[in-house]
């Protein structure tokens, strides 16, 4: 059987940690029987000695039986945790009034060794096989379902839109401080940016499914490993392709309209944004596969969006807007950087050579620290020298978040699920710092 966490080499040692055994066998009337009994391991013989239970019947001499050791730890008011069990099959013989099991096959699960989430992910193919079988039996398709709203929300990864809101609103408030304002153009830029971002998210799923990266990933988290909608059978690959194309079509159409009405300067920004977005995972460039994903994300969700929005409103470029975009660019780059850590084994397996795949842990953790430091240094320099509003200094209050993520990376680098809290905090670091920069410019408008 697959997915077993049983340590064959330490079977008797592990079994000895349980309180009792459950002996299961087939009785004369054909029904299975299972009954608890005490036991002791016999390491010198490699066997397990069981007390003879006084049950419905006795297993036949030499018959193959199943002996299971199971444990849960009750959590009153919650349920239970520390789930583990070991199941052993083998012939049972009678020795000096006891029963002796000679282990031949084993199966089991210990959530300390294989997390429940990973167990579920590794079991996805089994679920598909079962539903396929049900479909054949019933003559109709049996598949998992989710409401259309949740499907859209999850498949497009809507929560990540904070990466688009921050730079576009930042570009808009910098323009406002410079005396340019057009709320409807800001809204249009926002809709275009959202469309391109959602298209990128969905296209990323399409290409990662095609390349096998998402299939190979058995440690997805809410922040990494893609939306899993294709892997779970909730949507088809072709449906996701159509969604990606529709999103890009909307975004590009808005970009063309804005270029036509606001100026050709926007053309190069738009082309660069769409180019980086599409070829982030798409061939022939597949930037993320070559370790350039971070640069793409930094450029796309930093200068391109901030300057693009600024240009849409002001019809010119601004050095201040560019400078203000840099810390945002670094922090969103770090979101991808950290989120790729749990994906490392699957990415490596599918040939996706991200920076995390290419570099060792120490370099990655140090890289995070240096990048966070650079982001806050840029904020401070900009504010102190007057390149940006001096109010931007309020964004420095999120710096401790960066330190916390840095420490968590060092501690939980190889533990995907323990790392989740740090991944969440890292996203908040980008969001809150970006929002504080926006607030700084809003204050500057009125002061």
């Amino acid at each position: 059987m697959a997915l077993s966490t049983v340590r064959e080499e330490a079977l008797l040692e592990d079994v000895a940690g349980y309180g009792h055994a459950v002996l299961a066998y087939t009785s004369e009337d054909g029904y299975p029987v299972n009954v608890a009994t005490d036991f002791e391991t016999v390491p010198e013989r490699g066997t397990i000695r069981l007390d003879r239970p006084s049950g419905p019947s006795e297993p036949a001499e030499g018959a193959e039986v199943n002996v299971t050791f199971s444990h849960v730890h009750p959590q009153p008011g919650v349920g239970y945790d520390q789930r583990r069990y070991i199941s052993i099959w083998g012939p049972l013989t009678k020795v000096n009034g006891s029963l002796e099991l000679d282990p031949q096959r084993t199966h089991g699960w210990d959530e300390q060794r294989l997390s429940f989430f990973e167990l579920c992910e590794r079991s996805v193919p089994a679920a598909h096989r079962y539903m396929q079988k049900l479909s054949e039996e019933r003559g109709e398709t049996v598949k998992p379902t989710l409401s259309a709203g949740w499907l859209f929300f999850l498949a497009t990864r809507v929560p990540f839109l904070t990466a688009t809101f921050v730079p576009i609103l930042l570009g808009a408030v910098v323009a406002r401080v410079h005396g340019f304002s057009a709320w409807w153009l800001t809204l249009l830029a926002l809709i275009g940016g959202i469309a391109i971002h959602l298209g990128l998210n969905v296209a990323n799923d399409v290409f990662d499914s095609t390349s096998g990266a998402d299939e190979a990933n058995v440690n997805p988290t809410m922040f990494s490993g893609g939306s899993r909608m294709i892997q779970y059978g909730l949507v088809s690959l072709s449906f996701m392709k159509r969604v990606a194309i529709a999103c890009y079509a909307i975004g590009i159409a808005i970009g063309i309209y804005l270029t036509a009405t606001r100026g050709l300067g926007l053309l190069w920004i738009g082309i660069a944004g769409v180019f980086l977005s599409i070829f982030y995972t798409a061939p022939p460039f597949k930037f993320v596969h070559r370790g350039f994903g971070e640069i793409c994300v930094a450029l796309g969700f930093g200068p391109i969006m901030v300057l693009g929005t600024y240009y849409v409103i002001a019809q010119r470029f601004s050095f201040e807007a560019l400078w203000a975009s840099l810390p945002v660019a670094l922090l969103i780059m770090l979101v991808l950087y950290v989120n790729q850590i749990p994906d490392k084994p699957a990415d490596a397996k599918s040939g996706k050579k991200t920076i995390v795949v290419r570099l060792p842990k120490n370099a990655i953790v140090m890289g995070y620290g240096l990048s966070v430091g650079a982001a806050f240094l840029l904020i401070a320099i900009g504010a102190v020298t007057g390149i940006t509003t001096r109010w931007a200094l309020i964004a420095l209050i999120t710096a401790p978040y960066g330190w916390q993520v840095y420490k968590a990376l060092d501690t939980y680098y190889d533990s995907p699920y323990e790392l989740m809290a740090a991944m969440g905090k890292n996203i908040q670091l980008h969001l809150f710092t970006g929002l504080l920069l926006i607030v700084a410019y809003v204050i500057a408008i009125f002061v």
Partner: protein
Amino acid sequence: MGLLPEPVEELLNAALVSELTVLDPKGRPVTYPLIPLYDGERIYMTSSVLFSKKLEHIKADPRVSLTITDATATPVEPFRRVTIQGDARVVEDDLHSGWESVLPLWTAKEPIITELVKKRFAMPLFWERSVIEIQPRRVYLWADERTDRQPEIFDLTGAAA
């Protein structure tokens, strides 16, 4: 009072885990730790399609045996051990929400399930589930944890349709 003897019902209503033994295609026993639910007549368990092997075994051979053996996970005084043989069937007309019929029994034992169900979108396949419905046929009840002593036997054949 339900179908089963009162001490057995008390165990079924309290147990956080039991061991369900089914037969594989070669007639060999296979045991799964599962949370037992009881409505006064039948015993229920649920299984995600992620872990569906047991469902296939039951469909091929409905004969099962369930035992409650863990005193720590069964807060009943005095604790007894019980084995229940019966016939099982898999109810899965609606994998998405059919199992919600036993949700009140489940959440009574595992309250966190209420919160997890609200977030079922995060683990969609885990919440596509079948219900295992067991009609008890015979019960073996040991007065304490000593299964080396003779059990009290209850034959329920014909006790319920």
